[in-house]
């Protein structure tokens, strides 16, 4: 037992990481925080629109885009890969929509068709061009968050050192996401709740749809080369579902996302320190922990609250007795 799970040593797990290597670790936690915030905010609308798995699809189908960008541009720069991945991501959402609209194929099946095909295509390309591709696919699809602080040189603006480029990029993406979600709150709300009404209110539901898909692509692609695909897919879904157990007002659900992001990023980081395991999956596990708590204790849809409500609403047994002929 002791060999599998190390003892929980408060000093080693909680204090030491910050005392010894604050500079390195803060970037890891911040990266997780920003990535989870961005994914969680966009994911809220995916979940509401019953499109939770589109993010999953995108995170696989970017592979051929990355390979093609690499072959065409002969560059391993993250800029080139970003463009390739983004292109493939947008293509994925358009194809899913196209198949679904033009036939009876339902959305879940359309998602399954598109991303498996594109992923397979990507795998074939990789094996065809292995000789020319010096591409660490593991790193592309399952990037490791521990590498984040090692990205030198740090981004500098006006003589101010901001931080590693991927963290700065992620911070920008999640800030823009928050601004978009707040600015277009009404348009997103009405087109998700009642697309039919949206039209007669002057909100073009399909423009909102494609904008959401486009921005989802940006978020997914800018996350996963540094935090890994599991984290992205999980974080598109988990914060929204956790929030749905806790609140039934959309603004509160959205506001809970950064808080959940902070708790998951910090909790995951310390969990990983404790267990000596990979950090990004540990953040996912921490977020699952939040979900489990909400599932049990959430005041709106938690099991405990529902049970208490059932008890409170049940008639005392004796009330019905006179009507049932008992005395």
């Amino acid at each position, binding site marked *: 037992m002791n060999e599998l799970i190390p003892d929980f040593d408060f000093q080693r797990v909680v204090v030491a990481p910050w005392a010894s290597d604050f500079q390195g670790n803060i970037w890891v936690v911040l990266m997780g925080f920003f990535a989870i915030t961005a994914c969680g905010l966009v994911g809220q609308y995916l979940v*509401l629109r*019953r499109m939770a798995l589109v993010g999953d699809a995108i995170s696989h189908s970017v592979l051929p885009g990355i390979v093609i960008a690499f072959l065409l541009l002969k560059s391993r720069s993250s800029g080139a890969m970003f463009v390739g991945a983004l292109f493939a991501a947008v293509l994925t959402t358009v194809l899913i929509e196209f198949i679904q609209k033009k036939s009876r194929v339902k959305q879940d099946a359309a998602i399954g068709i598109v991303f498996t095909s594109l992923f397979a295509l990507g795998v074939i390309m990789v094996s065809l061009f292995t000789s020319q591709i010096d591409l660490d696919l593991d790193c592309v699809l399952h990037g490791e968050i521990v590498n984040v602080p090692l990205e030198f040189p740090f981004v500098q603006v006006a003589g101010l050192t901001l931080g590693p480029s991927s963290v700065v990029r992620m911070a920008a993406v999640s800030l823009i996401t928050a601004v978009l979600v707040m600015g277009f709150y009404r348009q997103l709300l009405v087109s998700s*709740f*009642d697309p039919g009404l949206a039209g007669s209110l*002057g909100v073009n539901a399909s423009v909102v749809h494609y904008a959401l898909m486009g921005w989802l692509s940006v978020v997914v692609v800018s996350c996963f080369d540094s935090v890994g695909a599991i984290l992205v897919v999980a974080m598109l879904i988990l914060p929204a579902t956790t929030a749905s157990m806790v609140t039934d007002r959309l603004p509160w659900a959205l506001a809970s996302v950064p808080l959940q992001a902070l708790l998951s990023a910090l909790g995951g980081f310390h969990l990983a320190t404790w267990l000596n395991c990979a950090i990004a999956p540990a953040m996912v596990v921490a977020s699952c922990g939040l979900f489990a708590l909400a599932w049990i204790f959430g005041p709106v849809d938690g099991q405990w609250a529902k049970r208490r409500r059932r008890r409170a609403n049940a008639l005392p047994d004796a009330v019905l007795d006179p009507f049932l002929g008992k005395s």
Partner: protein
Amino acid sequence: MNNTVPLPTPHTPGPAPTDDIPLEVHDLTVAYQKKPVLWGIDLVVPAGKLIGIIGPNGAGKSTLIKAILGQVPVSAGWVKVFGEPLKKNLRRIGYVPQRESVDWDFPVNVLDVVIMGRYGRLGLFQRPRREDVDIARACLDQVKMLPFANRQISNLSGGQQQRVFLARALAQEADLYFMDEPFAGVDAATESAIIGLLQELKSRGKTLMVVHHDLSTAKEYFDMLLLLNMRVVSFGPTEQVFNNELLQKTYGGRLTILTDVAEAVKQQS
């Protein structure tokens, strides 16, 4: 294809409004996957009337409303609202969709839903103003739902959900309303409250087009009826249109219950 339906005869002389014909539909054809569901629809709808849209399941009633509102692509024909293309007069249109068309587990409360009716009047980034909230509350009060303003919408009964949709349409402060089965799943008391509300709107000069399934009440509720089954079977004042022959034509062979209704109608008149 000339063995069918007579074109709507131009009844209703009325005060002959000039540009103020709320709705004009010309030769509208809609097809889903090449199968036409509406064919050559011609309508000129006069102002200040409560109009029932009647026809069997699958007749294209919902599709007609969606086509007029630009939610489904039309294959031919055009629609004018208050003498102009739809886009120009969006603010003058209110819409009550079929209740099943939305997800009632959505994390919003009753007031949030009614405030949506005000969105058409807000600028791109503008938040709902005090006055919008007040109007939304007043509309909730009109449908007797104000006590439920802060209730999550999934904790409402079907009839209450229907009233929330109605309040939202009222909040749109429109001149021309489309309502898709506002009486579905509503009890008798609520139904008569709603019809009272619709009549009040009418008396203020609004035009209302209401999809309705209950032939036994259609006659007393509506000033005019649109009998629809892929084509316009007939459109005119209720007393001229609501007769055995035209109802037979509308409902085709499926007339088991309907013959009874028609019999009753005959005896009444």
